[in-house]
């Protein structure tokens, strides 16, 4: 009874569920790394660390501009590194998921192969 139920699921809705699980995990990564927010604020100053010109003098304005550009640059760099990590995690998840999809039908019988290799 157990085996019948198991195989019915494994070759039925179980196999179909793999892509759904991949999508769920990718969504989790997107949320965990706040990718939507990161993309929206990619060039925003880091922690809104912005400077205002102390006067209208060109020098002051230029200083403020440089300060803000540095803040934006730091923000950009940190976000890009973070995005890169997220992309790696997504790639890993998708590759693992696709591999699982491919080996899925053979997986229940693979232990026989391992037993054969181990014992003979």
């Amino acid at each position: 009874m157990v085996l019948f139920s198991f195989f019915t699921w494994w070759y039925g809705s179980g196999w179909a569920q793999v892509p759904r699980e991949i999508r769920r995990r990718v969504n989790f990564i997107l949320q965990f790394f706040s990718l939507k927010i990161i993309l929206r604020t990619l060039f925003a100053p880091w922690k809104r660390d912005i400077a205002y010109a102390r006067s209208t003098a060109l020098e002051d304005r230029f200083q403020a501009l440089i300060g803000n550009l540095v803040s934006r640059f730091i923000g950009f760099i940190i976000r890009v590194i973070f995005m890169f990590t997220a992309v790696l995690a997504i790639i890993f998840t998708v590759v693992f998921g696709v591999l699982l999809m491919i080996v899925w039908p053979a997986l229940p019988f693979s232990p026989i192969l391992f037993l054969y290799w181990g014992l003979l």
Partner: protein
Amino acid sequence: MNGKTFTYSRNIRTQKATIVRLFSKPIVTLLKFASVVFLVAGVAMLIIGMKVGYVLFAPAIWAFMFLLWHQWDLVDLDAGNPVASASTRLEELLSADIVNRIGKADTSLHLWEAIRDHWQARFFVNRFLIPTEVIEQGLQANPVDVEVVYAKAFELAAQTSQDHMTAGSITAALLLTCPYFEAGFARMKISTDDLTSGLYWQRQIIDRYFKRKERNLFGGLARDWANGYTPVLDKFGENISKSIEAGYSMFSDETREDVITQMIQIISRPSRNGVALVAPVGSGKSSLVYALAETMLKGDDKAGGLAYLQVVKLDANRITSTIGQGLSIERLMEEIFYDALHAQNIILFLDEAQLFMETAPGSIDISHIIMQVLEQTRMPIILALSPEDWHKFSITKSALLAQLTKIDLPELNESQVARILEDIALPLESRAQTMITYSAIKETYAMASRYVTDKAFPAKGIDVLQDALNYPDQGIITENSVKMAVEKTTGAKVTQASQVERGELLNLEELIHRRMINQFHAVKTVSEALRRSRAGVRDPKRPVGSFLFLGPTGVGKTELARSLAATYFSGEESMIRLDMSEYQLATDVARILEATTDSSVGSTFLRDVATKPFSVVLLDEIEKAHPDILNLLLQMLDEGTLTDTSGRVVSFKEAIIIVTSNAGADEIRRRIEAGQQLEAFEDEFVDQLINAKIFKPELMNRFDDIVLFRPLKPDELMQVVQIMVGNLNKTLSAQNISVELTADALQMIVQVGYDPRLGARPMRRALQKYVENTLSRKILTGEAQPGARLTLSAADLQSGSGADSDSGY
């Protein structure tokens, strides 16, 4: 029934349900552990060149496959909603944890036997205090067709929005369909609605503790990277959103989702986005803001454009404590608001906003700064205010209030309060290591709405339920625990009368007569009102009793009120007296209705009643009051409430209202002296008062009874003196001295003290002059030592008091 026929046949779901039961949580954990161990060991063996390591991969893969099956499929057997799709197949309709247990049950008793150990069945047994044996007896004596039970369970599941028929819905259905239980339920005051409500409670528990939920990431790691730091704000405020994120508690408030949506809409507006939450103290204004913070943190569609904004509650105490430390409040507030504005993800919350809008101890008036911020920026601010404060500020700070959008929190109804109390019951139970019954929850609502008037729901319900934990009834919290808690905190008698109290009630007349002489009719009338109230047969919407006492001065009208307070209420201090001769002008109406919440005014009439609802309210000499005040009295007697100047309703429903008047006193005396019996001319006398326009007929009609007091006869006055001497002895008992008067001494006091116009009142002075003075001399000269039992004659009093020989005696 709806004509449905339910069928049952085993299918793949029922098979899986059996497997899930076999693989309990510990077994699954063991499998997870084993698969990792086999995998690691296999790899390790291969690395050191042992080919047999491959063998270990086999169990690791099998365990991995089973775990996938378990997690992706078996634990989710209750996905789908067969109740909504009106299925009649029990193998689909029944929840997975019972589908194999009861599918084949052919009698109602078998059904019960199959589920009686399930926690959801035990829930009804425990929370409704219905013994298992009684259920078995009932189903044996009066079996119900299982089809009828299933149909009812289906109906209940649909009614309580459950996806499946659960052990709980089957239990409730068994209890509701078996006629055997009807009489017992009636006796235990359990209705159909109660059992359905119990099922709602159960669904709440399942949703909260048993359903699998996706982990919420609250926006992820980089959520606040584009928002500024808030160093000053952090020092003077509490970030509610961060507390929620840290997992302090859940605040989602299903009952008020519409208010949360409304707040989100207002805050999202491009201008005028300040919100004022206006509701009485205890209505849950702060928890609503917590729920809003939680909604925004989740960042889903409900949060709209406010996703991931954070709510920071400003702390008035911390701000005021900086006064005098160099930095001006204006400057500090500027920095706080700058932080919040600069960060761009902050909503400021001013809980008890009056603390930021007036100059009083612990408060600080920064309303002008708040107004500037609201006018000049898009900074969202939420203020929580009571209606009284809103009313007050609408006059003094109208410009600021005009910047805000007011949201009046609707009052919660009984089922909403029950949901909240049920929710809070579980953590309370685990803290107090006890169990709270359904009747306790129900009683909490009833008792709190009737007896707690200084707060609103849900706070007052939560307070009462928490207090009830101190009064367990055989180890659990029942309706009696709740009643005990209310009795202790309010003084109202709500528990079933004890043997002693029942004795007191039945002999109330005798007890009162120990303190006062004659006036049998009056004593009987008020005693009967109390007995009616205690037996629960009075109209709960009106005061316990309302009486007009008419008669000359000094015949015991006030004394009866005082005796009643001392005998049956918690003491003479539970009498609230108002001398109506002090309210002769139309403008005095405002003094009676003075706001109960205005702390600048000391004791006020309505505040006394609000704090001591279970009391004797004595309104002396009513004929002297202004007619407008008599109109207030009409409302008090009719509706059992008065509304103070701030709009707060004060209840008189637990009070006895005694109104006294000397009007027509001379007429009563004349008729009694002419030998007429009091009872014979009562009606005629009342008519005379109405005809003479002393009292309006509508007022007279409002009283439960109008009682005439007659002047006391000389022998009754002697008894009054004896009571007074008894009271004197109580005072003297500290010195172990007692005094007794001879017959001639008693007569002397009556003769000296009696004044036909003033009744027994001057006798107090006579007693002082003759008896107390004599005694004090004897004590000071050492004649009366501790242990002395003095008997004083008229001659003793005459000589001992130092009274002049021409005093008339």
